[in-house]
């Protein structure tokens, strides 16, 4: 009996629900649309309720201006100014005479939905949720455990989406490029002072990349709370290191065993009659062992192919390759200094004050720049190319005076997502290049003094050259 009653209740329930959905959906979609359009087209120059950016603050704009006028102004403000519309000219004058970009690619509906969005805009409310949304620590063991299970996809979310979080936000270190923040990175930026608002970004994905990945997961407040509990705990743990398969080592061991067996058979057991088989095994084994020993010995103290995880997933392929930014736009001091320099936050912000969202990583990585800028805590980039202290190397001498291209030593940087050490920076490598490189005496002013000395010697003006004349009294010749 009980079952039948329940079943009867289910069908009308579903119908009612779908009718409700049908009624509610379009308006919600439209509002969503307006927000997306606003963020895509307007936020570069305008803010709502946070003051003037390039253009004026748009809070309560619909009360100050007619809707009709707004639509025309958004479509093409320049035309209105040229036509002498008094309001438009006034706005133009008030904003340093910078005309607003024309948006004739937007339909009337789209512009209206943007205006609707601005009209209905309210200051961001904290996400509705009973538990303390600012809570970052002091979770109980049970809450952490439950959060961990959710993170690993063992407990499905109430509103659908059973995929494990850890399939994208991995909990181990990886050797390949993963644009998604790892679980530890999430945990760290959640727990960091002024860090990510986990509750807000889970409830309302901020970037296109995250909307795409998180779109179908609508977590309830309670679920977010458990995930937060897990992440707060994870921040104290160190990620498990990534281990490679020891293939070279196994090769060494296998040939060691084969050679021993061959020797034993050759001297004692004599099962295989043809002795050349022993010979071949021993020769190949020795060759492989020596090869391994030599390459390993050569790589001592050299860090070729070292490509550490940087604090921000900065891709040289995107910046130097796709965006065609010159190396020296960011590494400005390479022309003048010993080191090529880590770019300061200000250099990043030259572009990223406008570009606030990455194509691959959403806002997660770019937000780290803003966080570092606000907190004053430096971004701890890891230096990859470390010249030994007993070697003097100067970028200024090579880049500026010698006019050597960056790629000569650093390899195809414009193709590297993860920057790695391309050359082994060994002494032999330096010397080989110094032997082969032809000095450009003709077009390079740096060497003009040598040319002058050469000409003077030839014409008999001087009979010899002193050390002083070739820069021997420069302080740094001895005191560097």
């Amino acid at each position, binding site marked *: 009996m009980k079952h039948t009653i329940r079943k009867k209740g289910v069908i009308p329930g579903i119908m009612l629900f779908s009718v409700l959905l049908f009624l509610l959906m379009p308006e919600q979609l439209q509002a969503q649309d307006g927000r997306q359009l606003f963020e895509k087209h307007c936020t*570069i*120059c305008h803010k709502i309720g946070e003051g003037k950016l*390039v253009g004026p603050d748009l809070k309560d704009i619909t009360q100050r201006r007619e809707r009709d006028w707004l639509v025309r102004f958004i479509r093409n403000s320049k035309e209105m100014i040229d036509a002498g519309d008094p309001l438009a000219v006034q706005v133009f004058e008030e904003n*340093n005479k*910078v005309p607003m*970009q024309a948006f004739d690619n937007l339909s009337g509906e789209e512009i209206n939905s943007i205006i609707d969005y601005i009209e209905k805009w309210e200051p961001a409310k904290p996400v509705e949720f009973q538990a303390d949304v600012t809570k970052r620590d002091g979770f109980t063991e049970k809450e952490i455990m439950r959060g961990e299970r959710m993170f690993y996809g063992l407990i499905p979310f109430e509103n659908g989406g059973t995929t494990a979080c850890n399939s994208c936000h991995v909990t181990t*270190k990886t*050797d390949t490029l993963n644009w998604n923040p790892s679980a530890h990175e999430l945990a760290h930026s959640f727990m960091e002072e002024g860090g990510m608002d986990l509750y807000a970004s889970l409830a309302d994905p901020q970037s296109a990349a995250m909307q795409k990945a998180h779109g179908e997961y609508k977590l309830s407040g309670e679920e977010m709370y458990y995930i937060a509990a897990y992440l707060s705990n994870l921040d104290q743990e160190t990620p498990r*290191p*990534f*281990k*490679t*398969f*020891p*293939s*070279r*080592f196994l090769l060494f*061991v296998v040939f060691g065993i084969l050679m021993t067996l061959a020797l034993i058979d050759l001297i004692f057991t004599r099962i295989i009659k043809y002795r050349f088989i022993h010979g071949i095994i021993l020769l190949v084994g020795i060759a492989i062992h020596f090869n*391994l020993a030599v390459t*390993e010995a050569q*790589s*001592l*103290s*050299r*860090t070729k*192919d*070292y*490509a*550490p*995880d940087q604090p921000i997933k900065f891709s040289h392929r995107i910046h130097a390759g*796709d*965006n*065609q*930014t*010159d190396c*020296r*736009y960011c590494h*400005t001091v390479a022309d*003048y200094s010993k*080191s090529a320099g*880590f770019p*300061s936050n*200000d*250099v990043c*912000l*030259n*572009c990223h*004050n*406008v*570009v606030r969202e990455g194509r691959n990583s959403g806002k997660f990585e770019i937000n780290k720049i803003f966080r570092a800028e606000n907190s004053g805590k*430096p971004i701890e980039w890891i*230096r990859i190319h470390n010249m*030994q*202290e*007993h070697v003097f190397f100067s970028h200024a001498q090579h880049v500026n005076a010698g006019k050597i291209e960056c790629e000569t030593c650093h390899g195809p940087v414009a193709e590297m997502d*993860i920057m*790695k050490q391309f050359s082994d920076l060994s002494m032999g490598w330096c010397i080989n290049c110094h032997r082969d490189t032809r000095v450009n005496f003709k077009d390079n002013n740096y060497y003009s003094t040598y040319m002058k000395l050469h000409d003077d010697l030839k014409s008999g003006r001087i009979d010899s050259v002193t050390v002083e004349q070739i820069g021997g009294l420069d302080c740094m010749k001895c005191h560097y």
Partner: protein
Amino acid sequence: MIHKRIIRFLPAVLCLLMITTSCDRTRNDKGYEYFPDMAHSLAYESYTENPNFPDGNTMRIPPENTVSREIEVHPYPASPEGRAEAAATLSNPLEATAEFIAEGERQYNIFCSGCHGTSGDGEGHLYTSKRYAVKPASLISEKMMAAPEGDIYHVISAGYQVMGAHGHMIRPAERWKIAMFVKRELQGNTFK
């Protein structure tokens, strides 16, 4: 008994030890060093941590109200008033030579052409590839044609609107060379 057990386990333990200390490296692993006696600096280097300072950095921020040697202060703000003032007061201390203009072109192609375009029309690669959403200013517009070199120098140094300050990236002399190049080459060519 105990001896036998130890002998049985020994190879396994040895293998495990050798595998964990194997020469197969991940990309995060720097590998081993051989007598690195002189390889690492004993002195603190520019970018290394430094326990002697409260913020832990070796590089220091100059004390307040001081100016570092070789730094040329640019006292004009990035506002329109500052720009007008700078344009009226600053003048190029360098003489226009072909060498300086060529150097200006080199610097322009490093620092400016990404946004403002190689011909200065504001159609740089970053904008045309839709990676940077704000239309960069054209350097060959009527407004810029009328602007003196000091105006260009000021905008490079202090920035203007969404353009960030580039004064910390380009040395003063180089900024003047860029201004010289923009005035004499980029804008000059459009007359022809």
